[in-house]
C-alpha cells in the first residue's frame, strides 16, 4: 500500500491550495458554519461597499419620520426620515472597521507580548505578566467611560486602537501559557538545535500551532469591540461624527422612546439585529477555527 500515491511536488502554492481546500471541507462539514461564514461575508460586504450602495445624502423622506417598516423602508425610518436599512448598512463600516482594528491590535500586541514573555521566560516574563495582570485588573469599561472625555475618538481607527490597547491582556495571557507549553515540545527544541532563527521558530513553528487559539481570540475581540463600542455610543458618552449602530441605539432609546412606544422600535431593532447577527456569525465561525488550523482535523 505504500508508494501508491505519488503526490505533486510539495511547493508552497500547493500547500496553500490544500489549505484552502481543507478550509472549504471544514466549513462544509456543518451547515451552521457555512451560515456563519455567509453572515460574516455579508457584513464584510456591507462594511466595504455600504457607502457605495448608499452614497451620501442617504434616502430621506422628511414627511415620514419614524415610518413603520414597508417595502420602501424595510426597517422604517429614523427621526429625520432617513431609511434605517441604509443607516445600518452604512453604519456598519465604522463598527466593523473598529472591530477589525481592535482585533488586529489585540492579536498583534497580545500575541506579541504573550509570545515574547513565554518564549523568553525569566525576568521579561515576570515583568510583562505583572503588567498584563495589572491591565486585567483595571476595569475596562469604566476606564473607557473616563477616557471618552479625555480622548477624542476622532475615527474608527482611533477607537479601535484604544479598544485594542485595552483588550490585549487576555490574549497575552493565553498565548503565553500556550507558548510555555509549546516551547517544551520537541519540535521547537529541534528547530533551535538545527540553528533556525528565532523569527522562524516563532513565526513558523510556534504561531501556526496557536493559530486557532489566536483566531478565536481575535474573533472574540471583534465581538468585544463591537460590544464595547456600540455600548458606549449607546450610552451617549462617546463623541461621534458619523453614522454608527450605537448612535442609532442611542437615538432610538433616548431620543425616540423605543422602549416606551412602538414607533421607534424598528429603529432600535435594526441595529440590535445587526449586532445579534454579527455575533451569531462569529460564534458559528469560531466553531470551525480549531479544525481549520489543525491539519489533522482539516484533512479528515
Amino acid at each position: 500500500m505504500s508508494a501508491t500515491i505519488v503526490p505533486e511536488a510539495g511547493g508552497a502554492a500547493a500547500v496553500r491550495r490544500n489549505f484552502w481546500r481543507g478550509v472549504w471541507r471544514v466549513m462544509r462539514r456543518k451547515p451552521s458554519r457555512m451560515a456563519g461564514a455567509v453572515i460574516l461575508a455579508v457584513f464584510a460586504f456591507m462594511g466595504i461597499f455600504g457607502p457605495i450602495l448608499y452614497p451620501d445624502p442617504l434616502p430621506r423622506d422628511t414627511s415620514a419620520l419614524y415610518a413603520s417598516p414597508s417595502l420602501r423602508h424595510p426597517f422604517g425610518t429614523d427621526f429625520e426620515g432617513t431609511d434605517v436599512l441604509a443607516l445600518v448598512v452604512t453604519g456598519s463600516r465604522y463598527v466593523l472597521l473598529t472591530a477589525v482594528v481592535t482585533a488586529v491590535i489585540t492579536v498583534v500586541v497580545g500575541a506579541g507580548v504573550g509570545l515574547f514573555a513565554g518564549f523568553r521566560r525569566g525576568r521579561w516574563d515576570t515583568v510583562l505578566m505583572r503588567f498584563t495582570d495589572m491591565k486585567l485588573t483595571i476595569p475596562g469599561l469604566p476606564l473607557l467611560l473616563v477616557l471618552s472625555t479625555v480622548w477624542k475618538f476622532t475615527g474608527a481607527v482611533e477607537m479601535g486602537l484604544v479598544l485594542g490597547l485595552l483588550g490585549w491582556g487576555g490574549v497575552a495571557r493565553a498565548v503565553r501559557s500556550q507558548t510555555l507549553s509549546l516551547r517544551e515540545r520537541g519540535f521547537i527544541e529541534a528547530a533551535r538545535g538545527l540553528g533556525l532563527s528565532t523569527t522562524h521558530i516563532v513565526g513558523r513553528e510556534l504561531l501556526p500551532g496557536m493559530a486557532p487559539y489566536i483566531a478565536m481570540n481575535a474573533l472574540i475581540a471583534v465581538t468585544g469591540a463591537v460590544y464595547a463600542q456600540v455600548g458606549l455610543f449607546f450610552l451617549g458618552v462617546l463623541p461621534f461624527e458619523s453614522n454608527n449602530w450605537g448612535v442609532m441605539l442611542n437615538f432610538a432609546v433616548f431620543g425616540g422612546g423605543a422602549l416606551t412606544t412602538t414607533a421607534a422600535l424598528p429603529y432600535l431593532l435594526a441595529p440590535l439585529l445587526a449586532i445579534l447577527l454579527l455575533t451569531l456569525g462569529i460564534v458559528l465561525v469560531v466553531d470551525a477555527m480549531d479544525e481549520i488550523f489543525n491539519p489533522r482535523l482539516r484533512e479528515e
Partner: protein
Amino acid sequence: ACSGGGTNGNSTGGGGGVYTTVDLNKPSLDVNAPINPWNPKGNAFWGYNAMRIAWAKNTLTDPNQFYPGIAASWDLAPDNSSITLHLQPGNKWSDGQSVTAEDVKFSIALAYTQGSTAFAVDPGAAGAASDVEVVDDTTIKITQDMKNPSVTFVRGVMDAFVVPQHVWQSVVPAGFWDTLKAARGDGPEAEAAREQVKALSEKVLAFAPAQDVSAGPFVLKRMNPGEALLVKNTNFYNAANVAPDQLKLLNTTGNEQIWNYLTSGTLDNAPFTAVPADVMTRIKATPGNQVIKGYSPVAVSLAFNQANKPYDNVHVRRGLAYLINREEVTRIASPEGGTAAVTTSGIHQKAAREWLGAELGALEPYALDPATADKEFTAAGLQKKDGKWTLADGKPWKVTIHIPAPFSDWVSAAKAITSQLTTAGVDAEVVTTADYPLYLSELAEGKYDLGFWLIALGPAPYNIFQRLYGSSNGWNILGGKVKHSAPGKDGNWMGGPETIDVDGVGAVNPGELTAQLNSVSGDEQKAVIAKLAKAANQDLPVIQLWDYVNTQFVNTNRFTGFPEDDSDLLRQPSGVWIQLGMIKNKQ
C-alpha cells in the same frame, strides 16, 4: 411602574393621597446629599420642602411678579430702593417653631455666603442690598444699594431660600453682620472680611441637618436611591389646602424614564420634558393624562464662532440661515417642546411680541430660500464647484456642528440641519462631545466653529441678551462697568465685533446696550431691546432655531386643579401649585 397602581392615591380613600412627580431641578436623587437648598444635589426640593421668600412668575416681560412664599405680601418702594416683606402669619416650621423675620434675616446671611444677586458681598454689584432690617416678628425690610441699582434686585431678594435659624445656627459665627458690613467696604480690611465670608460658603454648602425642618407644604420623610418620600407638613401655613398627604419624588436619569412613567400613568405631574411625537400619542392615550403648555423663557440657537473663517462673514451666516428649514428641524427634534423660531431676534417669540410689537414683523424672517442663500454666499466670496460650496480660496468647506452627546433633541436637530445643508450643497457634519461640561469648556476655548447655544433666557431683559452679548461674546460687567475682551480671551468664544452697524439704527455696541438693560426701565428698556433685536437679526451671531414650549403633563385621575395652559405657574414646580392650595383631591 407596577408600584404606581397599588400605592397611588385611590387606595388612601377620602383623605389626601400620594402625589407622584419628578423634581425638575433635582431629577437624580442622591441619598447622601444633605437636606440643604444650596447644595447642588441637596435633598431640599424647591417648592416642596424648601421655601423661597417668594416664587417668581417669570412672565413674558416683567421679572418682578411673584407668588407668595415665605412672604405673604410685600411693599416695593416706587424707585425699587427697598422692599418690605410681610411674612405669612402663623407660619410654623415642621418642628412647631414659628417662622420669624429673624429666620429670614439669618437665611439672608447664608445667601451672602453662597452668592446671590441681591445679597452680594462685592461692593458695586448691581442690584445688591445695602441693609437688612427686621422690623418686627413678621416684617423685614431690605434696602437696595442705590449706587448701582438694578431691576433684578427684587428678584434677587425673593429668590433667597429660607431655612430655620435654630437648626442652622452653628453654621454662622456671631458677628457675621459686622463682617459683612466690613466686606462691603474698601481696602485690605474689606478684602479680609470678604475672605471670611467666602470661607463660610463651604461650611454652608456642606451643612447637613440631622433631619428635615421645613416651612414648605411637605417634610422629607425618607428616601432611597430611587425615590424620595415627603409627607404633609401640618404646620405649613396653608396646610388646610394642601391636598396630598404624601409626595413621592422619583429619581430619573433620562427622559425615557419619564416617558415610561407617563405612559403608565404613574406621575401626577411631570415637569417639562422633551417628548417624541409617538410617545406623546401614547402619553395622551393614557387615561387621565393631560398636556398643559405654557411659555418657557428659553430658545435654542446655532451659534457661530466668528473668530473662525468663514463665519466671520455675516453673509455666510445669513446664507446658512436661509438654508435651514427651522420648521422641519423643530418637527424632527422637538415637535412638542418647541415652536420654530419666527426669526432670529434673540428673544423668545412670545416675549418678542410683547417687547417688539409690530417691529417683530419688520425683522428679516430668514425663511427657507436657497436662492438668496446662494446670493449671500456669493457675496461672501464663496465658490460653488460641482454643486458644492467651497471657501473663497477654493478649499473644501465643511460646516462642523458640535453638540453635547447627552442632549438628544439637539443632536437630532443638528443632524437634521446637516442633512439640509448637505442637500443644499454645503458639506456638513455633526460631532458630538462626550458630555456637557466638556462641551462647555471646549466651546469656551473656541474649539468649535458652530455649536448649540441657549438664548433668550427670560424674563429679565438683561438675561435675554446677555447670552448673545454677554461674556460669551466678550462683554463682562465688572464693578458696574462694561468691559470688552478680545476674541479668545475671558470666555469670549463668539468673537463678534465690538460695534455693529445696524440698518436704521447706526453703529451700536450691543454689549453696552445689553448692560443698560439692568438699570433702565419702562419704555427706555423697550427701545434698547428693539435695537438689540434688530442687531441680532441683522448680524446673526446665532441662528435662532426654535423657542421652547413648556410642555407639562398632569394626570387627573387622582388630583385636579392643575394650572391651565399658559399659566405662569407652569414655570414653578408643582410644589408651588400645591402650597397655593390649587391642587384638590379628586372626589
